[in-house]
């Protein structure tokens, strides 16, 4: 297929705006919305690896879809087993979520600076989405589904609209819509925690070695 100059310019502009990182889907009211093209990794056979799968989704996206080539080049390809190892994820009990987790992620994964924050608000997550960066939220999925406090659960925020947040949920499926009213108390039980990603072209591993 041949493109004329004008078409090339359009493609260029859309890539520049990060539109190649997003795709259009329909919300529950049949409105067209945009979400990040983050692949979904289910965890049906192993129940305690939601955070591992969420990290995997983010890495795959940053490696293959994120619009900065330098970042794409340096973000590593990591298997679920490798991520389990660096996150100290253990049978039945899941992943330890604290500063050590973040330290381990930062010292093993190039191209992204991870941070764990409490009391994160939707504006912060929206700003990330605007920049084409997904975030991992930690919330109480059983409370969300059944109103009973249960395990802490991780999922990847791929879109936020006025009414809903859209999560790639390792337990429940991809592009999972949750209204803000339903999500808020489930998130609050986990102190509104999120693992935020910041693309960083600087080599962290090289710096540590020095």
């Amino acid at each position, binding site marked *: 297929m041949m493109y004329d100059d004008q078409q090339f310019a359009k493609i260029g502009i859309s890539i520049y705006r990060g539109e190649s990182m997003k795709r259009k889907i329909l919300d529950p009211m049949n409105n067209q919305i945009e979400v990040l093209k983050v692949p979904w990794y289910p965890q049906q056979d192993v129940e305690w690896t939601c955070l591992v799968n969420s990290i995997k989704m983010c890495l795959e996206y940053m490696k293959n879809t994120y619009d900065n080539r330098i970042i794409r080049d340096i973000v590593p390809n990591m298997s679920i087993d490798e991520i389990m190892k660096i996150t100290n994820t253990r049978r039945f009990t*899941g992943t330890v979520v604290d500063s050590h987790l973040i330290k381990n992620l930062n010292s093993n994964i190039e191209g992204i600076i991870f941070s764990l924050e409490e009391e994160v608000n939707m504006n912060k997550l929206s700003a990330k989405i605007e920049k084409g960066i997904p975030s991992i939220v930690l919330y109480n999925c059983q409370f969300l589904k059944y109103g009973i406090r249960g395990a802490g659960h991780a999922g990847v925020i791929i879109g936020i609209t006025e009414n809903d947040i859209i999560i790639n949920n390792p337990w429940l499926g991809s592009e999972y819509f949750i209204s803000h009213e339903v999500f808020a108390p489930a998130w609050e039980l986990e102190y509104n925690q999120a693992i935020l990603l910041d693309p960083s072209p600087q080599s962290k591993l090289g710096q540590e070695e020095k």
Partner: protein
Amino acid sequence: MIQNQLVDLPVDERSAEKIAYNWIRSTIGNIPHVGTPVKKGDMWSVPVHVNYPRIFKDLTTERPQKLRFMSFKNIGEVKIDAIKGLIVDKPTFYQIQHKISENLTLVQKTVQKALVKVGANYFAELPFPSHMHTPLLDVLSWLLVNDRIDVSIDFEQINEEERKKYQQNIELLTKYGLVEIEGNIITPGNYLIEIESRGKNYHERLSKALSFFFERGYEEIESIYQVIGPYLTLSSICYERSFEYGGVLPQDYSEIESIFMETYRVEIKRIKLPRYLVQLEAVNILESKTIGGKISWSANENLFNKMCLERDILEPIAGLIEG
């Protein structure tokens, strides 16, 4: 004094919960959660609970279909000094992990007991060469063929360890009236005599005796496991998942294989797995279906429904499944 008062502010309920929460998340993992703190004197006691997730997928779409949680309450306790806000006592990671494992085993064994009770006839129909080596079958067969065992003579040539195994199984069979002991002499018990009179041939008599033992002796699940080990493990994977789901749920082969191999961890079992499935289908404990172009395995609906009616046996785990 003023400084002390400033430092030693009493810890309120929410703060106690947060301290315990942080400890769980930073030491144990994301699966356990905090319960409601209870104040006991100068101490907050925060229970640690686990609502263990089970995800059920639709085999046609390969998408998650249902999420349920098994509730394991009070698997640990975090004690916090209500004045200083310091943790003074807490379980270890391994204690929590062990408790979760223990509860999951309880669910598995309870389902197995109910399944063995209602499926006794079906399990007893499995071909005998498929049973693992077991003294239980040896003793029953011997008595059916030779009428009696004289321990002092017949067990004389076998080693101490083997003799012990036979003795244990004889005691077990005695408990359920299949065998009688009089000094060194073992003879058929009343029930075995009754069964003997109804069987056409030795094979049928042995099968009926085994069925009787499974039905009455379901509480001896470890001994029954010695007889039908991999068959029990495999069938209980399908029946347990269905029980947790609340209806017969087909399982795909890879899912069954991954759970089965967690139990056995020896490669030879991976090769034997299809044969076990075929044999379980032959005796109507499992059914195969093709869903979305893939073979899936599920519980026999009739047997599953009967199993769910065994409320007394299932009682210990009845309240565990939420959602």
